[in-house]
């Protein structure tokens, strides 16, 4: 597989744009750019009108794409979601090689879709940086309804693709449009030439194949391939087939297999793989599938699995994360996990998580309690697993001066909906409170849920707060609002948080890196991973009360205050992170990169860390993914900008350095 193919297989940070206009249902799936090359794909339900053009707004620049730059595509997945007739062609792909300006890397842009009847819809998205050829292949992939790999295969020379600057040029390259490939067929993880069946069987087994009809396949098993190396696995079902090249398979330790085979040394006999491409998968669990193992000597060994386990994609995500966290490795767990996530599994998990989140946040049920409509600040609280914190916070904050404050509770636990509605009703009987409940249909994770909740805020100041955060002073609200109005650090700040015994839990966050080692055969390699730490954790109450306000590399998502325009400028939390962890530091670093380091303002709160929600083993799997993702995204940047360590050398953190000294 070429480097280009490898790169294309990596589904990088695909921003899950959210329509700000509820009247027009739309989504931006991808914004991909390289200099003056730009491809945008997505869909819009414009059945009662038609798309007239697409405008892209970046920092200080704007570009309009007209009809010539647009193609409409069939989106069977969308048709079903919006009750459109099959083949309604609600998808679109926009492409140009002549953008009016050079798109900066990782830019956050606003995409505005104008309709012929004068209406428009917009969404904010983060641009995925790519090569010019990749941008074109994305455009072609959108046209063909296939993967970029398949698109490249169809058009042949990559050089010819790179020279095409508009759709007309692209289409002359491809000739008449080929029919869309069947679901998953050759969806391009690796192409293997099948050879003769093996004469002697390799010890192996498949423990399970788990399939989500929404487009995910998970396979797990073990194989003793010491004699002849495994180069790939192919799953063949009546309605689909998918291949996993060996580089895309996680290889992990299996003590049970070692024991069964009588092997005394730690060996990677275990394997597992994830494939996800968000296409509907015709699954017949009863039909089972054939699993073909291909070896380096060209031989083939197959296994018939009579039954597939069929699950929803959220459960598939949890199964994969559970596998990840349960894996046993020969070297450092986090490093080995990061290595296997690099293989494409990480991107698969992110993409699968995106799909889960997209479903969870679509069509939230919103109930407002209280008649007031104008507020000075909106406190957004994400609930998961525990409902009683609504009542506890309502009581605690009602005992303070909280006039003009609204609480927006977003629930990641659908099973709590009825209880939360009752709690909110009781709260309005007991106190003078304004509560908005935003009930999601599934667990969207911390970041995505907060993003949805902010859409329903009715003030210019947003306070993201954990359910287990309580006020230490009666004037907390006035001080936060005053802080948000401050010229220094007013756009984005956090506060110290204290344990219930008064000692400090959080005084801002700094970044550290750990170096761990991994083993691959005889090769031992090092890998650095970023980690976030809380300043002064455990500092006694007396010293904690003397904290000075200052800029810090990051603050915890347990309590952060942002002016709403700045929150929107940053496009809120990244939806890439799974469940929770690291999305707060990611938001802070993006703010820093945009010129606004976050601030720590000395307004104390209680934080009963970890008590406000339920934490399951699967969340640890999410944390592994998130740390890997955070490191991939920020390690180089952190090094380059002097953001590492308790006393980061970057001049923005002079006060933090002095405090650390």
């Amino acid at each position: 597989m070429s480097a280009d193919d490898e790169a294309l297989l990596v589904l990088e940070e695909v921003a899950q744009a959210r329509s700000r206009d509820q009247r027009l249902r739309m989504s931006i799936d991808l914004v991909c750019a390289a200099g003056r090359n730009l491809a945008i794909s997505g869909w819009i339900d414009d059945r009662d009108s038609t798309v007239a053009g697409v405008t892209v707004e970046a920092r200080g620049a704007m570009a309009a794409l007209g009809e010539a730059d647009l193609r409409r595509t069939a989106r069977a997945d969308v048709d079903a979601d919006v009750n459109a007739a099959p083949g309604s062609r609600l998808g679109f792909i926009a492409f140009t090689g002549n953008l009016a300006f050079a798109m900066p890397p990782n830019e956050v842009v606003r995409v505005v879709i104008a309709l012929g009847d004068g209406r428009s819809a917009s969404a904010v998205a983060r641009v995925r940086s790519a090569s010019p050829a990749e941008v074109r292949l994305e455009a072609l992939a959108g046209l063909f309804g296939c993967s970029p790999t398949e698109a490249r295969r169809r058009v042949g020379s990559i050089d010819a693709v790179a020279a095409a600057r508009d759709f007309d040029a692209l289409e002359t390259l491809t000739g008449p449009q080929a029919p869309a490939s069947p679901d998953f067929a050759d969806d391009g993880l690796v192409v293997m030439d099948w050879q003769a069946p093996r004469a002697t069987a390799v010890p192996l087994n498949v423990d399970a194949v788990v399939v989500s009809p929404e487009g995910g396949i998970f396979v797990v098993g073990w194989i003793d391939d010491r004699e002849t190396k495994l180069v790939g696995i192919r799953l063949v079902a009546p309605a689909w087939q998918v291949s996993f090249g060996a580089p895309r398979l996680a290889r992990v330790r299996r003590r049970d297999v070692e024991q069964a085979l009588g092997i005394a040394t730690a060996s990677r006999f275990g394997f597992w793989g994830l494939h996800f491409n968000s296409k509907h998968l015709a699954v017949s669990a009863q039909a089972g599938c054939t699993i073909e193992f291909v070896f380096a000597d060209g031989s083939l060994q197959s296994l018939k699995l009579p039954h597939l386990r069929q699950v929803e994609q959220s459960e598939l995500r949890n199964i994969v994360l559970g596998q990840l966290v349960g894996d046993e490795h020969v070297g450092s767990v986090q490093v080995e996990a990061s290595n296997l996530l690099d293989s494409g599994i990480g991107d698969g998990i992110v993409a699968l998580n995106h799909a889960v989140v997209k479903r969870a946040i679509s069509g939230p049920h919103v109930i407002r309690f209280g008649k007031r409509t104008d507020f000075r600040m909106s406190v957004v609280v994400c609930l998961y697993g525990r409902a009683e914190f609504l009542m506890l916070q309502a009581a605690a904050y009602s005992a303070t001066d909280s006039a003009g404050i609204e609480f927006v509770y977003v629930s990641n636990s659908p099973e709590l909906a009825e209880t939360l509605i009752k709690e909110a009703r009781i709260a309005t009987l007991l106190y003078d409170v304004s509560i908005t409940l935003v009930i999601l249909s599934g667990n969207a994770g911390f970041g995505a849920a907060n993003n949805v909740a902010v859409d329903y805020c009715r003030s210019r100041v947003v306070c993201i707060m954990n359910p287990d955060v309580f006020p230490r002073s009666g004037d907390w609200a006035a001080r936060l609002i005053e802080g948000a109005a401050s010229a220094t650090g007013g756009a984005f700040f956090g506060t110290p948080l204290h344990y219930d015994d008064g000692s400090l839990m959080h005084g801002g966050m700094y970044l550290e890196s750990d170096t761990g080692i991994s083993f691959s055969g005889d090769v031992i390699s090092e890998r650095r991973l970023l980690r976030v730490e809380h300043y002064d954790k455990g500092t006694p109450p007396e010293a904690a009360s003397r904290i000075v306000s200052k800029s810090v590399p990051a603050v915890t998502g347990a309590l952060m205050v942002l002016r709403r325009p700045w929150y929107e400028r940053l496009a809120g939390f990244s939806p890439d992170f799974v469940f929770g962890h690291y999305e707060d530091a990611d938001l802070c670093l993006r703010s820093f990169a945009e010129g606004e380091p976050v601030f720590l303002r000395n307004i104390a709160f209680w934080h009963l860390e970890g008590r406000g929600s339920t934490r399951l083993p699967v969340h640890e799997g999410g944390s592994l993914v998130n740390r890997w993702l955070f490191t991939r995204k920020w390690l180089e940047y952190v090094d380059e900008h002097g953001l590492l360590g308790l006393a980061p050398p970057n001049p923005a953190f002079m006060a933090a350095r002095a405090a650390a000294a």
Partner: protein
Amino acid sequence: MKTVDMDSTIHGEPASVDPRLKVLVVSLYHPELIRGGAQQVAYELYQGLAATEGIDATLLASADQRWPSLFKSGARITGFDQRPGEYLFLSREYDHWWHRSGNVELVERFCQFLAETRPDVVHFHHFLTLGIDLLSATRRVLPDAKIVFTFHEFLSICNANGQMVRTFDRSLCTTASAVRCHQCFPNHSPETFFMRENWLKVHFGAVDRFTVPSAFMIDFYARWGIPREKLEHVTNGQRLPTPEPETEPVATAPRKRFGFFGQLVDNKGVQVIFEAVTRLRMAGFTDFVVEINGDNLVYATPEFRKRFEDFMAEEEARPMEERNVFLNGPYSHDELPRRMKRVDWCIVPSVWWEIFGLVISEAWAFGKPVIASDVGGMAERIGHDRDGLLFAVGDGRALTETMQRAVTEEGLWSKLRAGIRAPATREDMTAAMLRVYRGVGAAESAAQHSTATLGG
């Protein structure tokens, strides 16, 4: 996306000009349905208020599913047994950890009840089965009403049934903290206790005045965080049955009959009596009798239950002439005179703080000196060698010596009997509470009940 606007605010109308003081007594349980000290006191107060000129008294007492037929379909608050002024609060979905009801309609109906009755004073006797958050609801609906709350034990401070007895070694506890409470309940984190305390305190913030039936409780609650100036001691008062005439001359009868009246559960300390009985026998002192009156053994710990049953089985196996301990079983209020007549002394060996000890009042009403543990409400009420005898709490050896002294010391019983003061009456308590309602310090009149003494 569906958006629903909801607003459930209920506000009381401005109070009308009414010279009568309207008092709503909110009680844990109706004593007619479920017996217990707190509800008995609340009901005594309600009756006292109802009988007082110028007072318009209403009772709202809770009921639970022990009487399911009282839960009329769709009703949350109903009248009670055709008694004017008495209402039942039909407790539902009660959360025994957070002490609140999760039933919206119940809370809503309570708010409406307040808005309809518009009392000047709302006096809560406990929050159990009612909900601590009804205090905040009351303040919201009746911003000008006076809210009074009576503590009947330490449930606010202590999750161990409010007894402040440590669960792992049954030692007495003097101070609650997040970690100490976590030690008693390892399944609940310290943070959970931190939240519990703050949750309760938020709602106690709505209260104007707190009363306690024993003065020693004031220190406990002040340490816990209730402003000391809001705490007042108002002793419990009650109407007691008239004693039956003594069958033997008071001065000459042998005083070797001891009685225990109360629940047969761990904290009431009947096991201390058993230890003392065993020790007395070992010392060859057998000329005495102990009568056990009470039941509810089912609520005791399995360990206590086994110990109790083993002891009684062994006792019943003895020849009649060798028996010292007799189990009389449960008794009704009406039977009390007859049961009391059978004993000379009442033993109150509680191994917890025993907040007030209604049994002490009952013993005194029948002229029986009390032998009691030297802590809490018992130590506060009983004057050692004046009207009773105190012994070290939980100390079987100390009780042994005290019982032997009680039987053998000539003139002791008569001296102590002569020192007994009449317990506070319903009228005493009502008058003291009215002073609290009207903002006058109750201490002078409430804590000091009648100084009349019983004749010897």
